[in-house]
């Protein structure tokens, strides 16, 4: 484990100082408060200012916390907000596809199911909201791995658990699949989680194009895939349309 990077620690200390009781501080106050040379403190403050984390009052020359910090704190999208905004689109997707629809987000090295729409055949089905699915073996997970560096980081190095003979367990193979996902804009998982089940997923983004989750259609391999064994193109189109519609709805939202 390498030691802490000194300038980052000092930057953090400055931010904490500015967040404390006295809201606006001059350069010498910051330097004295943290026992830093004025030149050092000035360098760090200027870098923080360029990143928008610190602002300087043009009149007094004093420093205060910047708006970017506020945006960082608010960028977290509440999963229940995501569900509320996705509701109509997820319903429509399930009806159009005739299959189950899930919405998932990254949570503790897995995919947390935050919304579930039943297959529209009125058969006995149990709501799976709150359950977890594996990142490496589902279409939802592969979308998150492909677009969210945090997800890929959390998954770490393989080999991962094989749920079926078709589960991708090696990092090289999975990373190649993720590259393909980014290239074509959707992911599939055909009998990789459960025998006989196939799913196809696409990315949900927020206003700033951050990956916030994924939406998928899941069903029997016979109905999800065509005679050639590949996911039916019409289904792919429906999932991508729904993902775009949900993303659009999130974009209209003020974070």
């Amino acid at each position, binding site marked *: 484990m390498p030691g802490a990077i000194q300038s980052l620690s000092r930057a953090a200390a400055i931010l904490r100082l500015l967040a404390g009781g006295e809201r606006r501080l001059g350069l010498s106050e910051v330097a004295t408060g943290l026992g830093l040379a004025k030149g050092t403190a000035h360098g760090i403050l200027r870098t923080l200012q360029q990143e928008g984390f610190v602002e300087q009052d043009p009149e007094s020359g004093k420093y205060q916390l910047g708006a970017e910090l506020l945006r960082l704190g608010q960028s977290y999208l*509440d999963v*229940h907000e995501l569900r*509320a905004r996705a*509701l109509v689109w997820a319903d*429509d997707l399930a009806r159009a596809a005739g299959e189950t629809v899930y919405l998932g987000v990254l949570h503790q090295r897995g995919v947390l199911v935050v919304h579930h729409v039943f297959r*529209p055949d*009125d058969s006995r089905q149990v709501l799976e*909201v709150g359950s977890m699915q594996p990142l490496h073996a589902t279409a939802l997970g592969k979308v998150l791995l492909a677009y969210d560096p945090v997800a890929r980081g959390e998954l770490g190095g393989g080999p991962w658990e094989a749920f079926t003979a078709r589960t991708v367990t090696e990092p090289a193979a999975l990373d190649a699949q993720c590259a393909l996902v980014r290239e074509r804009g959707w992911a599939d998982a055909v009998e990789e989680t459960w025998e006989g089940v196939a799913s196809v997923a696409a990315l949900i983004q927020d206003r700033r194009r951050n990956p916030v989750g994924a939406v998928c259609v899941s069903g029997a391999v016979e109905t999800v895939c065509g005679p050639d064994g590949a996911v039916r193109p019409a289904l792919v189109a429906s999932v991508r349309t729904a993902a775009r519609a949900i993303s659009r709805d999130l974009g209209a939202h003020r974070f």
Partner: protein
Amino acid sequence: MTASHIAAIDQGTTSSRCILFDADGRIVAVEQQEHSQVFPQPGWVEHDAAEIWTRVRSVVRGALERAGLTAADVRAVGITNQRETTVLWDRHTGVPVHNAIVWQDTRTEALCRELGRNVGQDRFRRETGLPLASYFAGPKIRWLLDNVEGLRERAEAGDVLFGTMDSWLIWNLTGGVDGGRHVTDVTNASRTLLMNLHTLRWDERIAESLGVPLAMLPEIRSSAEVYGEAVGDLAGVPVAAALGDQQAALFGQTCFAEGEAKSTYGTGTFLLLNTGEKIVHSYHGLLTTVGFRIGDRPPVYALEGSIAVTGSLVQWLRDQLGIISTAAEIETLAGTVEDNGGAYVVPAFSGLFAPYWRSDARGVITGLTRYVTKGHLARAVLEATAWQTREVVDAMQKDSGVTLTALKVDGGMTSNNLLMQGIADVLDVPVERPYVAETTALGAAYAAGLAVGFWDGLETLRANWHRAAEWTPKMAADTREREHRNWLKAVERTMGWIDQDEQSEL
């Protein structure tokens, strides 16, 4: 004719919408426009009926354009509307004689007390199923006749017509001054305090007591039959259904059989229970109303219970207390704790409604200890909606003898899983959410489609209803009983807060 769509006009309190449906009941296009709210005095709420008609024409045109359809593609149009809102207009010019008086408007409260005479607010309940309250249309007509100069004489001469929003739209859609049909449907008529529930006709005795000339009242028709043909953008399309909004939601949820119930969760909540061909009088503060009537088939009645504060309690937490920043966040906050920590919230903001009807009650938060966090309060807020639902359902079961086996839900709050699970838990029955969230417009479309044979019967419509989610009860019986006892204790603590002399000023 190959017309393959049904249009629904949903004329609501804040906006008008036109939704086009295909044969599977799926939405093809939606167009929506808001209209102005007029507040001339505290407690008074009015709409400009002429503006509403302009908006309605515009959304119909917009929806057709959006879908790339013309009138020839529309087989029928159905109407659903804000209930009880009252408009009077000149039959020769088509011009409203005054702004429409909206259902929330309380200007007729004193008049209603006066009309109750020595009997009180239940004076016309046996005939109409309703208490004498300011919501309903009858007293609003009387107020207009008393307060608009020369109106009574014109009304008695037959020059002025009355309608709820359905009548106003049908009259205009079918030609207005040029042969427009002056009709209303049984569900809207059942909210006037003027219709006899047994005969489905205007009650002459009550009309006389209220001072409303029969000449100005529309003909009462069923909810699903061809009232006339539209002119204008929908030229030639049969105007074939009208249902009040809550009844339309009941119909859209396909609660066609006795014992089926729906609950719409919005700012407030409306529960309707289909009681079949029976008129069930309520002894627990519910309303008796017509659910729907298809053509010349027997009418289907319903019991209605409303909860004033449900979604608005979550808004209160957001806007007044600032504990959450969006309504959806309440679930996140409530999810941080396992239970309510012993805290209960009873949102009797303007008294207790069904089944208590105590205007001297005010809201409480009770059971507070040092242990209670904002997470517990968030949970207590969601539980308040669940327990209020339970109390209305209990009242319905006592009045009707029907035991609920499942509850169909719709409305904005159905996206809250914790709440829906909570409702299933306290009712001890499954809670079901259908695919189409727009159950109100769908109900109007269904009724219109039935009337013209676009759909062949109720069973076809039932087959269109699909479960998108189901919450099954998980709470242990002893927990449910304990929580119910605590809720009832909390409710008790709201009563008697307002003293008698303060109350008379309200």
